[in-house]
Structures are given as structure tokens and as C-alpha cells.
């Protein structure tokens, strides 16, 4: 008995110390398989999620960067966010709301926010908010931020192409980015 308990607690401690909680995702995304063996780094990554229905979400995991990001966006685009809302923002994970809805979204209670169907970040050329979001996140991270695109297998290429265009276009001009994939079980079909 005692050895078993010892082992159980050892495992508990191990898991407690090594766990990083799975970030909450607004939409389940089924990532496509590939043979690539490079793993996604933990830091300095900005994830652009493309949902199967074509909505686009953004995420930066580092709290400090998110804080700076929100304040910079707030200043630039007069979003009228309060200190509290900026704090809420820095504790969130992936989000997909246009700038004019950001304040309202952050004011929601945690459960309401979960139930709220986020419209996704606009990517059309008339309201290219994704480009602005990316630009200010990179400013907040002092340019030390890599872009990773996490697309659903069944997302239309059109949306992914638009996202890549925005990432590549001025003022971002990132030509070097990553696609998040999962390890393929067998040879690709």
C-alpha cells in the first residue's frame, strides 16, 4: 500500500509541476497531419487560428506581451479600454472579435464570454484588422514574435491565402512563418 501511495503522489507532483493547462479554444480546430518533426516553441509565438467556417482568431500566450499589446491598441485605435479590461485581455487566450466589439467582449462575465459566438477578426481588405492586430502585437513583443498559422483541415484555402497575404504584406512583411500541423500517423494519403 505505502509504496503505491508514494508512487501516486510522485506522479501527482510530477503532473502538477509539468502541466501547462491546455489553453481554452473558442472553436475546436482539427489540425492537418504532416511529416514535419519540428515542435512548436512555447514562447514568442503568435497563433493565427483559422476555423473551418472561415473565422480567424488570434492568440499570444505571453501575458506581458498581451498587456502591452492591449495598451498599444487602446492608444492607437481609441478603444477606450479601462485598466481592468486590459487585465482581462491579458488573461484570455485565443480571441476573435473586431476592434469595435473588443470592449464589449471584455466586459462580459467569464461564462458569458464563453457562450458568446465570436465573429472572428475581419480580414477583408476594407477592414484589415488582422494586420493591425499583428502589427501591434509585434510592437509589444519588440518584434520577437513568430507567426504560426493553425488552420483547420477543412478551412478553405481562400481564407488561409488571405491570412498569409496579410502576414506578408506591409506593414508586417513577414515572409517566414510556420504552419501548425500534427504528426501524421502513416504515410500521407
Amino acid at each position, binding site marked *: 500500500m505505502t509504496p503505491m501511495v508514494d508512487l501516486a503522489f510522485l506522479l501527482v507532483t510530477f*503532473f502538477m509541476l509539468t502541466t501547462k493547462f491546455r489553453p481554452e479554444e473558442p472553436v475546436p480546430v482539427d489540425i492537418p497531419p504532416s511529416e514535419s518533426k519540428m515542435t512548436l516553441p512555447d514562447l514568442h509565438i503568435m497563433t493565427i487560428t483559422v476555423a473551418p467556417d472561415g473565422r480567424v482568431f488570434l492568440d499570444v500566450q505571453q501575458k506581458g506581451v498581451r498587456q502591452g499589446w492591449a495598451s498599444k491598441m487602446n492608444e492607437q485605435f481609441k478603444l477606450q479600454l479601462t485598466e481592468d479590461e486590459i487585465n482581462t485581455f491579458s488573461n484570455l487566450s485565443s480571441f476573435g472579435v473586431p476592434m469595435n466589439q473588443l470592449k464589449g467582449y471584455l466586459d462580459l462575465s467569464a461564462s458569458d464570454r464563453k457562450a458568446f459566438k465570436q465573429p472572428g477578426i475581419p480580414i477583408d481588405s476594407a477592414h484589415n484588422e488582422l494586420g493591425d492586430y499583428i502589427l501591434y502585437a509585434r510592437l509589444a513583443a519588440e518584434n520577437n514574435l513568430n507567426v504560426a498559422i493553425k488552420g483547420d483541415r477543412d478551412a478553405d484555402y481562400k481564407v488561409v491565402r488571405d491570412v498569409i497575404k496579410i502576414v506578408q504584406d506591409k506593414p508586417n512583411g513577414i515572409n517566414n512563418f510556420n504552419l501548425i500541423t500534427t504528426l501524421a500517423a502513416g504515410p500521407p494519403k
Partner: protein
Amino acid sequence: MSEVSSEGGGGGKHKGGKPKGKKQSTHIDMTPMVDLAFLLLTFFMLTTSFSKPKIMQIIMPEKPKDTTQQKKINQDDVMNLLVGPKDRLFYYIGLHFDQVVSTTYGVDGIQKILMDPKFKSNPRFMVLIKATPDSKYKNIVNMFDIMRITDTRLYALVDITDKEKELISKVPGSN
């Protein structure tokens, strides 16, 4: 559980001739603690994301500032891969074309074509990947993967032209 073991331990001592009840058993019932331990263990095991996602690095060419300085490509060096809707794949070779050939993503399809010594021996061989807007993202990832598997050095993701779209729609079974 623990009671069984404590009785077992006590039983051994009884036979040794110790008087009954004089010494209190030092064993405590650990069952609730063990329950808790396993509950936590299960919780952490289930919430941990173990397998980290993999990434595929994509380096896109920089936008040319001066198009007149771009090198012209030899038309025999170019293969165009057209990624169509419904997991369809087409290709043609060269720059001037009036029909596209249908193929598959499998080992016997495009991978075999790309491994052809005719292309492998050409250091300037280049693949242009063009996808229709209604093709799926997984097909593109698959395409990049095949480029890596077949060790194709030069490839690029390029916008599809209207003529190519039209030719794809003409291939039987693509609609």
C-alpha cells in the same frame, strides 16, 4: 484496502504472542488519501497536453521591388501543380498549356512523377503550387509535405490564374 493490510500485519504479531489490545495499531486508514491522490492524478493526466503540435516552416520569397530584374524561368524547368476542390490534384509542365492532367496525392500519383529522374537531375527544376480558392487547407499542407518527402528544393505557392481555373473545371468529375 488498508484495513486488509493492517489486519494482516496485526495477524503476524498475534502469532508472536503479544497480548491483545495492549498496543494500539499504528496503521491508519489511508483509503481517502489514496482516493484523493488518484483523483488528482487523473485530473492532471487528463488536462495535460502532452503531444506538442508540430510546425512546418514556410519561407515565402520576398516581394520583388523591381520586376525587371527577375530572372526568366526556362519553361521546361517548371511544373505547375493545381490543387483543386474535393481533394483533386492536377498538373501540367511548362508555361504554355491548354490542358491539365489529373493525378492523386498518393505515392503512385504526384510523388512518383516528382521522383522522375528527368526532374530530379535538373537543378533548376521548380514546382509552382497553385490552389483554387475552394480547395481545402489540408491539401496545401499535404502539398508542402510532399515537397519535403520528394526532396523538391524549389517550390513556391503562387496565385492561380483564371485560365487554370477554367481548365480544372473542364476536367470530367471535378464539379
